[in-house]
């Protein structure tokens, strides 16, 4: 749920209409209900589409979250250990 939350939070910062999809379903990236229902386990391939004035920044930010920050999972574990 937490990765979905991070994704929704970032998507919600943009005015563009953002969709995220796995092979079967497409979800509104700003709706936690729809994103969680994609039920993406680790290793699932996701496609991100955005339409609007800030669509490029939006895709870039989400791409960074998923590919570079890996949903902060590693950093999070350190934080838990420290806390």
């Amino acid at each position, binding site marked *: 749920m937490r990765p979905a939350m991070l994704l929704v939070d970032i998507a919600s910062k943009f005015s563009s209409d953002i969709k995220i999809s796995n092979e079967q379903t497409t979800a509104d990236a*700003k709706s936690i209900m729809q994103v969680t229902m994609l039920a993406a*386990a680790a290793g699932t391939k996701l496609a991100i589409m955005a339409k609007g004035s800030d669509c490029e920044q939006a895709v870039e930010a989400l791409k960074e979250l998923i590919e570079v920050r890996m949903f902060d999972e590693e950093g999070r574990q350190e934080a838990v250990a420290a806390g």
Partner: protein
Amino acid sequence: MEIKKGIAVSPGIAIAKPLVIDSEDYRIPRRSILPSAKVAEVKKVRDAFKSAAAELEEVGSDDKLAQGNIKDIFAVHQRFLKDKNLRKKITDLVYNDLLTAEYAVSTTLRDIANHFAAVPDKYISERATDIYDIEKRLLRHLLGKKREDAASISHEVVVVAHELSPTQTAGFDKKFIKGFATDAGGRTSHTAIVARSLGIPAVVGLEDVTRNIDPTATVIIDGNRGVVVIDPDEATLKQYQQFAVQFDRLEKELDALRDLDAITRDGVAVQLLGNIEFPNEAEMIIDKGGHGIGLYRTEFLYLYSQTEPTEEDHYNAYTEVLHVFGDMPVVIRTMDLGADKFTQSKRFAKETNPQLGLRSIRFCLQNLAMFKTQLRAILRASVHGDVRVMFPLISSLHELRQAKMILRDVMEDLDEDGLKYNPNMPVGIMIETPSAALTASILATESDFFSIGTNDLIQYTLAVDRGNERVSTLYSGADPAIIGLLRSVIHDANKARISASVCGEMASEPEYVMLLLGLGYRTFSIAPPMIPEIKKIIRSVTIESCNDLARKVLMMNSEREVINYLRNAAIKVLPEVF
């Protein structure tokens, strides 16, 4: 207009707006709203989302709670509550399909939860519980207020529910409750018992009355015929208003019998006592012309409080009633919990077959501290009136001896503490298992009195679950097996020179009164509102004709034959009751 047929369990006619109650665990029923209400209903959804989110905000800002994982969980819930997409899905259901806010919330979130639960990845499937949590939170905000309303209503209503639990009925302001209609239940369900003790009409076993009921429509509950009319047309409403007037007139006629003796035309006296569930019902027995309590159920002490009742709780409940009755008999039955009456408690482990499980006296004999607390209070109260103690569900002499031994222990304790009690307090038993009925001659040697609990005796003898709608038609006091047992129990009691009364529902059903008199019973303990009607029947018959009727019935070999014969006989005696 919609007419629904159920089981009539308490007589009378009520005409009022419905108060629809959902129990917490029960699935929210699908119910429609009027098109004119949809804007307000949508607002209810939005408000619930808003107040639930605000509540979470508060919890989330609490430093103690708001750490690590928990903080994350709440943060996720918060995102759901602020998800416009989710909210729209729900408000669309309300707006387009005209469904209630609570149903739309419940069905939408349960769909999502089911979706999660079906995912093979365990991390994801376990998220279903988060969704249920969100559902509960929203429902609490939607229904929480409404639930309180059930306890603090200020206008007359009829209660419509799937089934009513003791906790729910205890919370009602009884002044305004005019009748009950429930999906489930049978003649001896809790709803039926409470309705009869309140003297309000009730129809149960309606299967789906809670579904599709319009909360603004008028509802008629006809507890004489077992019919519920939703949104009646003008003619039907008028007709029922007339029925209600007629019924009131009959009630008044019966009330006039109050001060007359319960005596047959040929001069045989019958003792009419009342069954009560709460101390405050005691007055009604006197009002209706009863001469004592034949069955004081004490389960309310255990059911309506979170903790086990103290000795003082018991003592106060007993003395409160004793003050009303002076020197009239008051039979206090020890705790008879288990099975249908104790389903909500988590104190007891789930049993696969509770009716045959650890209940009633069996439970008491395994929980001696609790049992002794009650016996101590009963003994202490015994100096304030004609108190008699009665053990339920006795199924062997051994059990009776164990219970009496504990009673003696408690007496010794009281002696040591220098507290007064009546050492000769009569000790009786309920005859409600086939084994007790078949060994009545043995049990009679160590009992001071018998009281026949026909409800359980019928269910155990005929092996029929009275609450199961699919087999409840097999449940009947007119079965030759039951009549045979009733006859042998009174025979054995007479032989041992102890009294035997009937305290089950059978004694308050007009068609059985003549039979019970004919078999030899002279004491009936019944729901207080039924006393005048039963008295009227007693005053209209002769013992000779009852004996004759019983002799004929004992020769019959089918339930159908017996019940038809008994009904015809009762109609001849008292046509206005039927």
